[in-house]
């Protein structure tokens, strides 16, 4: 069986769905960041596949941009996570409700 664009896109969609579910269900902050990484990488797969399909390299270039952005987001997020852990001793987001209403 030849692997076509459709297959890649289905994979990408599945991954995105997994990421979304992760984002909604997880209460551990670290896992949340994992989930968002999955989301972005799902998109990356899509970009690479479409790029290949069109025979146009820009799509793959976008994937690199996405990786860079994802990395910087995680850098900010993890930096904060460490501070959070130091101050509150946990990384569960249910503890994070001092502001509401």
């Amino acid at each position, binding site marked *: 069986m030849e692997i076509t664009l459709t297959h890649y896109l289905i994979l990408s969609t599945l991954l995105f769905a997994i990421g979304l579910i992760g984002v909604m269900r997880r209460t551990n902050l670290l896992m949340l960041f994992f989930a968002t990484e999955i989301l972005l990488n799902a*998109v990356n797969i899509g970009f690479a596949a*479409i790029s290949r399909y069109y025979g146009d390299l820009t799509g793959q270039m976008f994937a690199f941009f996405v990786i860079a*952005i994802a990395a*910087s987001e995680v850098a900010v*997020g993890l930096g904060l996570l460490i*501070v959070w852990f130091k101050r509150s001793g946990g990384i569960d987001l249910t503890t994070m409700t*001092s502001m509401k*209403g």
Partner: protein
Amino acid sequence: MIYELFLILPMMLIVLGALMLMLLSHREAPLNRNMLSVLILALAFGLTLSRLGEAHSVFVFEAIFGRSFIVDSFSTLFDLMILGGAMLTLLINHDYFKSRHYFDGDFFALVLFAVFGMMALSHAHELISAFISLEIASLSIYALVGYNSDNPKSREAMMKYVVLGSLAGALFMLGLALIYGATGSTELGAIAAHIAAHPQDAHTMLIIGGFFVMVTLFFKIGAVPFHAWVVDVYHGAPLPVTMLMASTFKIALFAVILRIYLGDFAALGDFWSLPLQILCVLTLIGGSFLALSQSNIKRMLAGSSVVHAGYMLIALNAITLGNFNASESILFYLMSYFISSVGAFGILSFLAAHEHKQLTFEDFKGFGYSHPYLAAMMSIFMLSLAGFPSTIGFLGKFYIFTGAIEAGQIALAALGIFVAFVSIFYYFRLIATMYFYDTPKTEQHFGFDTTTVLILLMAILSIWGGIGTALLPYLPTPDALIELSRHAITSLD
């Protein structure tokens, strides 16, 4: 080449300034970093101002970047608004910066990076560059929100914003992938060409992709149901950052929204009108409820900023239905909202700097007697935000509602007017609190310094914008602003 360099010189100035501030951040130099960054912003502002009114449209360094960055009258006006907004925000918080120890060089460097991102956003003519600009601005703002890491609220706000923001970013990327898949390009011009070349019903993938892109942008402006972060983040962030997000960042976001809407998605209006109308209704009503139930002024203003985003969505909706004139009303509304909200936040910042209060409604009891001048100005801002006649806020709403009615959106305009009526409840609650309670006479902190002079300036502008046409014939009137916006919009065609 030199000309193109000159065109992007303001942006380069900002980046260089940010780098310089970073280098200076740990020096114990007796240096007013706030004023330094204001100076850099002012320089960029001046450079941009020299091009105002010029009709031009240039893709910068087309050979290298392709058509990803454009400099046109539209972006010039938005650059001015962003730079001016950031400048005023920094200046009006002058006292606040002095009263808190944690504002060092990095803080101002981050502000400048955020400003750079916002400017780039208004120049972006390609969706990937738009995303990168958006992320530059957002990442800086994430860091700014949590800047005071000693404050648990600040940390919590940042965490919420980062997580939600990365989800929104992922949605943007998903949308982008779909658009790329549908059209083979992410450049706005190419997408428009693609839309024009193909029949209406062949755009499903493009439409869905565009939808995700817009969701991200609506998330950033705080439209319901993507608003959950607004109140908490505005509350937790340091006041200057709240101001930057509420006004300046919103201006930049509308720059990209308008560019996308007017340029390309206009042809897809059929699909857009219903989700946008629902969004509009939800935002107006949901924001009102959010604002009504708050006991902290900062949170109330945050809630009401959602409502203000809703008003602008009404105009966006009118654009979708083909009334392109409504885009001017968005620009004017942005300016009017900026003036009144920066003034109101400025008073909060002044009080936080001098009296270290929590800034709840409770704290404002008898404010009218202890601080008569500030209370009077606060009342002006509240009136303007509520859209009371003879303030600039009224004019802003007036243009929006008439635009909606012209586009046949009478129900939305009626809802907008109703919501404006509801907003009287929470804005006047503050006025009532200030004046209807007696207070033991406390000492007044009112002298003329940077902060108070700027607050006063904002108050004067609020009134001038509302009745200026009548009083000062030789000064530019709000009509001039409208004219300016109209001129800027024409460069998009």
